């Protein structure tokens, strides 16, 4: 067969293999919207707890965000196949959600969630852990920057005043959820534009 295959044709086949494998593995960027959604959810919960003084601000907002995420993901994900990589990344975020929800609900119900610095520091550290693990698996530098921002925020919220800690948390949410989420959505859109049809 190679006698009939030009160098250009061989290069084309190699490019088909590379692009299709990349296409199959492409998944994380299509989750950019979840970063934005959860960033907004954190803002709502924070504002509700600060100005509304409600103990239900965080659990109610987080539960709503979970429901919205599940509904939108099931519609958006559609028939996308499962990959080992996707399951690894997904399991990090599911484990994070379960851990945070169980921990903070228990602390809230037991009346031991009295120090807002500790709350913000733990949330920031856990988000740093999840972003860091995901970034290391995906070898995604921009997500690792987010992890570093969350870790810095976790440390900073331990030392600042109440207002300073809240400002640090708000800035970290903006950079690592809103900005990073929009960046992910733009990256996904650009990748989609670059794909071309395959013919037999």
């Amino acid at each position, binding site marked *: 067969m*190679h006698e009939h*295959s030009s160098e250009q044709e*061989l290069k084309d*086949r190699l490019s*088909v293999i590379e692009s299709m494998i990349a296409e199959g*593995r492409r998944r994380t960027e299509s989750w950019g919207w979840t970063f934005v959604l959860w960033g907004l959810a954190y803002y709502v919960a924070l504002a509700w707890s600060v100005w509304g003084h409600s103990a239900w601000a965080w659990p109610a907002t987080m539960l709503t965000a979970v429901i919205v995420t599940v509904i939108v993901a099931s519609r958006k994900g*559609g*028939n996308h196949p*499962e990959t080992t990589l996707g399951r690894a990344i997904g399991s990090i975020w599911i484990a994070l959600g379960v851990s945070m929800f169980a921990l903070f609900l228990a602390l809230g119900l037991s009346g031991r969630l009295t120090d807002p610095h500790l709350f913000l520091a733990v949330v920031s550290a856990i988000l740093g852990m999840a972003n860091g693990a995901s970034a290391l698996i995906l070898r995604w530098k921009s997500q690792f920057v987010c992890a570093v921002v969350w870790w810095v925020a976790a440390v900073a919220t331990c030392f600042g005043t109440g207002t300073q800690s809240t400002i640090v948390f708000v800035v970290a949410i903006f950079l690592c959820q809103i900005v990073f989420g929009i960046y992910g959505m733009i990256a996904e859109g650009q990748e989609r534009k670059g794909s071309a049809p395959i013919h*037999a």
Partner: protein
Amino acid sequence: MPDLPELNPVVHGRLRLALLSLLSSVEEAEFTWLRAKTEASDGNLGAQLLKLEEAGYVAVEKKFVLRKPQTLYRITEAGRQALTEYVQALKQLLGAAIGT
């Protein structure tokens, strides 16, 4: 000069190669997802998948999810092996082409 390898004609077809490459990167995939990724027509896609199935490179599973029919494709061990060998042969041929 060493003998140049032959390219597997079943794998060499552009759409079949794209399908095998896609399936090598996921655990299993629906027909509709493969169609969306390759932008091939239903008829062409079905025909190429059938060729891959006949060669033993792809396994098919048909089932109903929420009363909707679903056709799932998965690359077999033989398919993965054929793709690996094809890539090695391709690299060898390209190396030879650049060398000449």
